[in-house]
């Protein structure tokens, strides 16, 4: 039907894919959010000082991607104007219904609050030192409070710490539920697995850490500022460890499937070897997982010069992001390419200029980078308040 090529037998209503590349993009974006936040929490909660230079950047990156995340969903819905219903009459048995609240909680209760608390003293300073519309902007952002005494900054710090602690499980929840949305569908054996939320969380962490690392390195280059190698080496180390866990989990899923060989296995196996060969074997596994792991492993065990390490990190980071996107693709699209009768396969016809087409996906991927650029301009991650002549304060969170 509709000129979509089918091999074997598909139930007639299965031939056309329901969830498009936009639904691939959504977990990719929220994954970056969760991963970036976990990196930020490394410094704040686990006191890994080395990654401090990426702390604020990680938060802003998370915010930029989180703001764009609902857009692919809205473009996908048959009736986006009814999306408020998810807040008004959420069906509590549906994982998707809980999304609206988890998202709102994470956006307002965690991310925005933490960013505001961390930047508050800078915002107050900027509200007094800038002019024109910027002055008004910062004034509004202060929410009326211009108290930046030591005591109030100490409170900010404490509350911020608590928010981060709450934020870690919240980040897991934000992206874990996406995994659960797929993992709880008993009708689809490619998705149905208790491992799904866990795999999603760890691959999210991998993508988020890689993204912040790349953004940090790029910004240093753009600002002509030397890259803090101690920072980047540490970030890369955590990327490597997280990647190992992620890879182990995916291997576990694979081995388990092959060994148990249930009724779906033959059909899925055939699909991975044919329709999904390029995105799954070549892109996700070889290029997107094994290569970055080997590159990062090399930097951990071999003595490599600084310049070569930077290049290695950049290449590994880029391949990682491609690999994690491919993972989302293989889950979402792959789960719809085979028939639930296990007797056939269909084809995904992705439009280009269509509402759910490739062009839209590309725009939505680039959009957060523009937002991030704007956020960096408005809330510079490297602004040091005590360099400005306002009020004597010892920076409460050691921003030095």
């Amino acid at each position, binding site marked *: 039907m509709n000129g979509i090529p089918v091999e074997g037998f598909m139930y007639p209503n299965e031939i056309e894919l329901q969830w498009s590349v936009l639904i691939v993009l959504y977990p990719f974006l929220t994954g970056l959010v969760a991963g970036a936040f976990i990196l930020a929490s490394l410094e704040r909660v686990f006191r890994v000082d080395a990654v401090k230079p990426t702390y604020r950047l990680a938060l802003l990156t998370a915010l930029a991607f989180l703001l764009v995340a609902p857009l692919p969903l809205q473009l996908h819905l048959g009736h986006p104007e009814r999306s408020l219903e998810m807040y*008004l009459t959420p069906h509590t048995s549906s994982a998707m219904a809980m999304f609206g609240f988890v998202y709102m909680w994470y956006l307002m209760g965690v991310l925005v609050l933490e960013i505001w608390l961390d930047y508050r003293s800078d915002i107050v300073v900027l509200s007094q030192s800038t002019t024109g519309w910027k002055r008004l902007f910062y004034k509004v952002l202060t*929410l009326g409070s211009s108290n930046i005494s030591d005591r109030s900054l100490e409170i900010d710090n404490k509350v911020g710490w608590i928010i981060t602690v709450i934020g870690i499980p919240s980040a897991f929840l934000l992206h874990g539920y996406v995994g659960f949305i797929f993992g709880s569908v008993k009708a689809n054996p490619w998705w149905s697995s208790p491992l799904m939320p866990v795999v999603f969380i760890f691959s999210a962490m991998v993508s988020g850490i890689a993204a912040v690392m790349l953004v940090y390195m790029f910004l240093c280059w753009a600002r002509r500022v030397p890259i803090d190698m101690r920072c980047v080496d540490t970030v890369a180390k955590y990327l490597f460890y997280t990647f190992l866990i992620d890879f182990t989990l995916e291997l576990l899923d694979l081995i388990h499937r092959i060994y148990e060989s249930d009724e779906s296995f033959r059909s899925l196996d055939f699909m991975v070897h044919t329709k999904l060969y390029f995105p799954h074997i070549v892109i996700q596994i070889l290029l997107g997982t094994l290569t970055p792991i080997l590159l990062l492993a090399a930097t951990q065990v071999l003595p490599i010069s600084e310049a070569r390490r930077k290049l290695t990190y950049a290449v590994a980071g880029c391949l990682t992001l491609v690999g994690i996107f491919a993972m989302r693709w293989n889950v979402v699209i792959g789960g719809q390419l085979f028939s639930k009768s296990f007797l056939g396969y269909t084809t995904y016809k992705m439009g280009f200029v269509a509402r759910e087409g490739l062009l839209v996906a590309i725009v939505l991927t680039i959009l957060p980078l523009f937002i991030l650029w704007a956020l960096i301009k408005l809330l510079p991650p490297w602004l040091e308040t005590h360099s400005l002549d306002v009020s004597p304060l010892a920076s409460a969170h050691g921003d030095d």
Partner: protein
Amino acid sequence: MAAVFLAGIVLFLVARSLFVPRSFGQYGHYRGAALGEIAAKPIMFAGHGACESCHTDVLEVKSKGVHAHVACESCHGPLAKHADDPTALQPPHIDVAVLCVRCHEANIAKPKSFPQVASADHSGGVVCDTCHKPHSPKIDSGASQ
């Protein structure tokens, strides 16, 4: 900051009371009025009972033949509009050559006991109702319309 959150929650509660449909939750987690709306959709097939109340002569013949349990609209299509107002809509003319083979064309997957023929060889091009009367199609002595 706390004020912002409070304002948000209040706004949400107000929106909730304004926008949630009245009948929501009446029978379960859905709009109760939907049941009535779905049940009110127009009917296209009248059902053989409606046909038989007027076309008693046809019923007389059909009930004695092998098509006794084939509903009228199975062949004649949806005719609720005709049943409501017989003069307003005349049932469309049936293309016998297409209709009969739909059921009776031989196919390996049909039950063996079901009457089926290879239509190309069966009648030498003659259309089905030349020999078979549709309301009582079996050809044996006496059964004719």
